């Protein structure tokens, strides 16, 4: 059987070489399909990777706790505005919840920031030092305000990269004084640019200050009251546990007996990530689906050519049968021929796909990642197509009647 298969392989190569143009066109069909699969997979994986990274840069273990008025009592207010959540809640969470690494309060308001003859409108955020840790920001220049600043409600601020660029251009903002409303604030540091944003907001267009300073100089709020607490779990995996702990602590502190009607809402990045993955997963599935369709079309091309080949070589099949070829021998001969065509298409398609990926990465700067198993899958798929689409023509050849085949002109 091995000897037959080897000789069939030789016959197959010779037969492919015999009609070069025809073989080339058939191979092209498979080539395009395989190249499409390879490129689309790389593109999809690249995009997904980028999405995951940008979510991680927001802090994938971040938990948002949004205050809202209790639902049962009177008219409902806007989420985040009403409610009874305080900085003390945040401190309690940090103290009691074992899976929470940091908690920062957050109040914010849009405000006009003025420096010399320039001004910009940005989101002013009142928070604490841990904000950088929770949101995964890095300082670019200067330093963060101190705990003393927080206690004394000093007029200091830290700027996002976009805000700094808008106000200062090429001037170093650290040490400069900006005006917010009627109060001067000293810029103590600037944040490193994050650059990517999924929700549409620019993570670099913001101005941070101690929450006490915010309440005193930007927006007058009851002492200790916050709209939003931002917590970070000790790890991505402990996010769910941290969420449960936070919920329990807040329910207890706010004396809420009806668990279904709390005066806060908790969001995690995990939910967001899941949604994103779902969207991109579906998109990639669609693209791969289209690529696979083109591969199937290529397979039909192979089948077509194999049927022509069987008809052309009917007499040869008759001769082979007369001198002792069994049905299986004929079958293997034509299956191998289809397999050779498809494998050549698969190999060249992979090469073309890889070249195209390289070209796109270099010229368009796209993020493309080809997982090695996708490469193996593409080759295996092309071989499978050879067997599947070669099967019918091969069986037709094997089932020919030797007498009729011998007298075929």
């Amino acid at each position, binding site marked *: *059987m*091995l*000897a*037959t298969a*080897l*000789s069939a392989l030789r016959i197959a190569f*010779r037969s492919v070489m*015999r009609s070069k143009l025809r073989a080339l066109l058939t191979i092209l069909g498979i080539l395009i399909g395989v190249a499409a699969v390879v490129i689309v997979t790389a593109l999809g994986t690249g995009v997904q990777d980028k999405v995951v990274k940008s979510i991680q840069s927001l802090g994938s273990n971040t938990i948002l706790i949004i205050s809202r008025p209790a639902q049962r009592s009177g008219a409902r207010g806007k989420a985040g505005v009403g409610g009874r959540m305080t900085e003390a809640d945040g401190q309690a969470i940090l103290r009691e919840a074992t899976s929470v690494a940091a908690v920062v309060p957050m109040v914010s308001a849009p405000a006009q920031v003025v420096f010399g003859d320039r001004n910009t409108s940005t989101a002013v955020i009142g928070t604490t030092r841990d904000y950088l840790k929770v949101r995964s920001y890095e300082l670019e220049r200067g330093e963060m305000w101190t705990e003393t600043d927080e206690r004394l409600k000093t007029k200091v601020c830290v700027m996002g990269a976009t805000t700094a660029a808008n106000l200062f251009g090429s001037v170093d903002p650290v040490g400069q004084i900006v005006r917010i409303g009627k109060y001067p604030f000293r810029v103590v540091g600037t944040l490193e640019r994050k650059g990517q944003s999924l929700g549409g907001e620019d993570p670099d267009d913001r101005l941070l200050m101690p929450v006490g300073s915010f309440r005193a100089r930007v927006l007058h709020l009851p002492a200790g009251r916050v709209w939003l607490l931002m917590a970070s779990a000790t790890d991505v995996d402990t996010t769910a546990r941290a969420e449960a702990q936070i919920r329990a602590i807040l329910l207890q502190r706010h004396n809420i007996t009806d668990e279904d009607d709390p005066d806060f809402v908790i969001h995690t990045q995990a939910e967001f990530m899941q949604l994103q993955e779902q969207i991109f997963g579906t998109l990639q599935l669609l693209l791969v689906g289209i690529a696979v369709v083109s591969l199937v079309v290529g397979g039909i091309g192979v089948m077509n050519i194999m049927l022509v080949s069987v008809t052309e070589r009917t*007499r*040869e099949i*008759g*001769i*082979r*049968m*007369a*001198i*002792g*070829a*069994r*049905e*299986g*021998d004929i079958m293997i001969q034509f299956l191998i021929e289809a397999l050779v065509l498809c494998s050549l298409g698969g190999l060249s398609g992979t090469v073309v796909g890889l070249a195209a990926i390289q070209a796109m990465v270099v010229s368009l700067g796209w993020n493309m990642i080809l997982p090695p198993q996708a490469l193996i899958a593409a080759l295996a798929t092309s071989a499978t197509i050879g067997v599947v689409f070669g099967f019918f023509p091969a069986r037709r050849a094997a089932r020919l009647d*030797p*007498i009729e085949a*011998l007298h075929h002109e």
Partner: protein
Amino acid sequence: MEPIIEMVGVEKDYASGPVVVRALIDAHITVNEGEFVAIVGPSGSGKSTLMNIIGCLDRPSRGTYRLAGYDVGSRSNNARAVLRNRLIGFVFQGFNLLPRTTALENVELPLVYRGQRAKHRRAHARAVLAQVGLADRVDHTPNQLSGGQQQRVAIARALVTDPPLLLADEPTGNLDTRTSDEILALLQRLNRERSLTIVLVTHESDVALCASRVITMRDGHVRSDVRQSSPRDAGEAAARAQSEPEPTSARPGGE
């Protein structure tokens, strides 16, 4: 003498639309080892049908056919393929060599289906090609060979498996008289020297005269079955033609 072909009441029907054509009717034929049998008859007499059944390419509709003791009628397509490979060497009118394939590879082919190793196959095929006088033509493809040479390659292919039976279907039909005589002389020599059983189908009486026994077919029946005590010696005729001037007629399939 062992009988190699035993046919008892073999019949073959073909459905041709609503009409059933009885191509072969009640054939009783026994051929012993070492015989040289010619089957003659006009076209439509059933000799091709008889040939296909003897060659295990077809199965009888009724009756039993035993080839070297094997009951052919009860065997599957694959089993008959194995029987053909083991017991029969085929020689056809149109040579039926694989195009664009060298003489050596053509002769090797039956051994491929026996699963023999390439080295053995090649050596054996070379030896048999030498026996039919084509030692210097092993790497030629059929279109580089004359009709006579092509038929010699076909005979080598038939002999390479060392079969007990050689089945020749109009082996000289495409050849001129002189080349025909050469091919017939080769067959006679193989029959004489190796006591190879040969069954040859022809419609030329000249060719039939070379056999030791002539079976005449007509309308599906075996009409006569005659032994010839002194068959024509094709070798002698070929030798005589050698001394005469070269015939001017073109050889089909020639160089």
